[in-house]
């Protein structure tokens, strides 16, 4: 194995392990949901890991990321620990958002993960604003908004892209096209075949597609577009094709998806793709098994710790509205 190949393998192994960590954490979240320890709802990203991990690997530590209610993978990819994520889902005081956000609002501002937003499309203009701010402050940061195929049909998408293009801002719009909005095929409700990429020309910006289940390709595409944005050449649209392994949310069995389609995509699992690439690079199976083992261990400890953590102090309900920490609206 030459040095270059070894480095390449090492890097990819790191990405693989991070994807495995996301997968395993979500699996734990799902199990906890089924056993009643996670309330409300969850939107698992299993199947989408390569997009979050590949993109994250292409970004600077101080770049900004905005995600949707389907945002576990992005939060973890930006360095949140499984423990603080699971604790949030389990309504613990130690959760990322102190049990005020829940699955749909995972946020880790300290690492530039500026939030998961549950109104489709709403965060795209925010990402534009963060990019504008980066430009104004001259920091060289960029902002990335991740969103679903369904979000490409909402007004905020259009306004965000136009403004970003007009102001030539350092922002990337990354569409995770998993073929469905909730239960309706995106093709049934979208005027063009590529819901994101086919819209790029309306804003005079590059529109690319990438295999969203190949972490290497995602990292490459995001690197290239990020560099471009950082160089002052403006925003770009990247459509990453992927598929979700679970239903849209919670207990949705996703029976609206043809069995053949599901099967085809499950065979193109981002973890398997990475495993295949690692094997081709000569990484032995036991190395992968060790990585998997580490992940299992981390997540198990996270589950245990989250389970053991206390719930929130009920008085927390009346904090954090205002910057002074309080919630008083009158004298």
């Amino acid at each position, binding site marked *: 194995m030459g040095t270059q190949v070894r480095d390449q393998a090492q890097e990819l192994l790191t990405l693989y392990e991070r994807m495995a960590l996301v997968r395993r954490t979500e699996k734990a979240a799902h199990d906890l949901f089924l056993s009643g320890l996670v309330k*409300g709802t969850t939107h698992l990203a299993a199947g989408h890991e390569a997009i979050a991990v590949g993109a994250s690997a292409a970004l600077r530590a101080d770049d900004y990321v905005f995600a949707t209610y389907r945002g576990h993978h992005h939060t973890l990819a930006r360095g949140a620990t499984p423990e603080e994520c699971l604790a949030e889902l389990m309504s613990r005081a130690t959760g990322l958002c102190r049990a005020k956000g829940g699955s749909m609002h995972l946020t880790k501002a300290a690492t530039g993960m500026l939030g998961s937003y549950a109104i489709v499309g709403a965060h795209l203009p925010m990402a534009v604003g963060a990019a504008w701010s980066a430009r104004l402050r001259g920091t060289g940061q960029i902002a990335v908004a991740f969103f679903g195929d369904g979000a490409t049909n909402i007004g905020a998408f259009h306004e965000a892209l136009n403004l970003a293009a007009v102001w030539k801002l350092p922002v990337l719009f990354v569409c995770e096209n998993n073929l469905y909005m909730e239960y309706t095929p995106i093709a049934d409700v979208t005027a063009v075949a590529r819901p994101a990429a086919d819209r790029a020309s309306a804003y005079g910006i590059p529109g690319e597609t990438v295999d969203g289940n190949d972490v290497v390709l995602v990292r490459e595409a995001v690197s290239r577009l990020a560099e471009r944005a950082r160089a002052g050449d403006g925003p770009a649209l990247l459509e990453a094709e992927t598929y979700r392994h679970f239903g849209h949310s919670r207990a949705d069995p996703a029976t609206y998806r043809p069995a053949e389609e599901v099967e085809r995509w499950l065979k193109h699992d981002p973890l398997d793709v990475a495993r295949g690439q690692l094997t081709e690079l000569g990484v032995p199976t036991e190395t992968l098994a060790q990585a998997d083992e580490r992940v299992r261990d981390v997540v198990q400890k996270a589950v245990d710790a989250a389970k053991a953590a206390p719930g929130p102090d009920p008085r927390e*309900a009346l904090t954090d*509205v205002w910057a002074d920490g309080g919630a008083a609206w009158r004298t």
Partner: protein
Amino acid sequence: MADVIDGQPAIQRQITYREAVAEGIAREMRRDPAVVCLGEDIAAAGGVFKTTVGLLEEFGPGRVWDTPISEQAIVGAAMGAAMTGMRPVAEIMFSDFLACCWDYLANEIPKVRYMTGGQVTVPLVVRTANGGGLGFGAQHSQATENWAFTIPGLKIAAPATPADVIGMMAAAIRSDDPVVFFEHKGLLASKGAPPPPDHVVELGRAAVVREGGDVTLVALASMVPVALEAAQRLDEEGIEAEVVDLRCLVPLDMSTVLASLARTSRLVTVEENPYQGGWGGTLVSVVADEGFGLLDAPVRRVAGECVPLPFADALEEQVIPTVDKVVATVRALAAY
């Protein structure tokens, strides 16, 4: 869908609030071919809350339309269709998302009749899943009737029982005025007796759902069962609470409220929404004017705290009124 009600003695059957929504729409679609439905995931999937199950099957794709995630286009198109001979029933999945098409509800739909000097009417219904208590967090849990209440020109319906869902849905769809129809997520699984065929509950008629002479509790939607349970508990302490289910915010049935107050002399509102800007404020202000002489004690509002809705159960129940809070408030008031 018809078999939800027909075919068995009504007395033995119970219908869920969720089923009542679909049944209420179906009844009107059978009656009037101008009634059409549109919204996200409402057709093939039967709605994410399963409140439109069976409509596509019974009425076909020409009358039940799946849309893109385009709240403005959904409600804007419903408006255009309503102005030109149809009676659209548009679904906005969660009432929080009304904010995404607020221009239509604030500036277009309620004003076009007035600003054209009466040239057009807009007979449409915007249905939406409303309210909290399910751990859906800040952006999927709000009780947003008050947003609409700030806008003259919208009728506002918020039923509390399956029978009212059907009766008020009939009235809403038949209304030549625009109606925002709030279906409470927390009540979807609740059950009740199904109403007879052609059951219509006129919009703007509150219901006295429990009689009592000591205090009037005025509630809406999910707060009606809360008020009723509180009344039950208060009964055990010897306090007789009358419970008024408002049913609608517009038209607002002040007559029923004032008549109850004339009997009880004490008033408490029970509101899921935040205190600031809540409907209870407007209601109390009418009472403080026209019913001032009837009052023997301060008026209290048991309303939501003025914060976004938190995710954790333990926090959410601090924010949304509970039976305990209502009981404690009434108890204190009775001692005034």
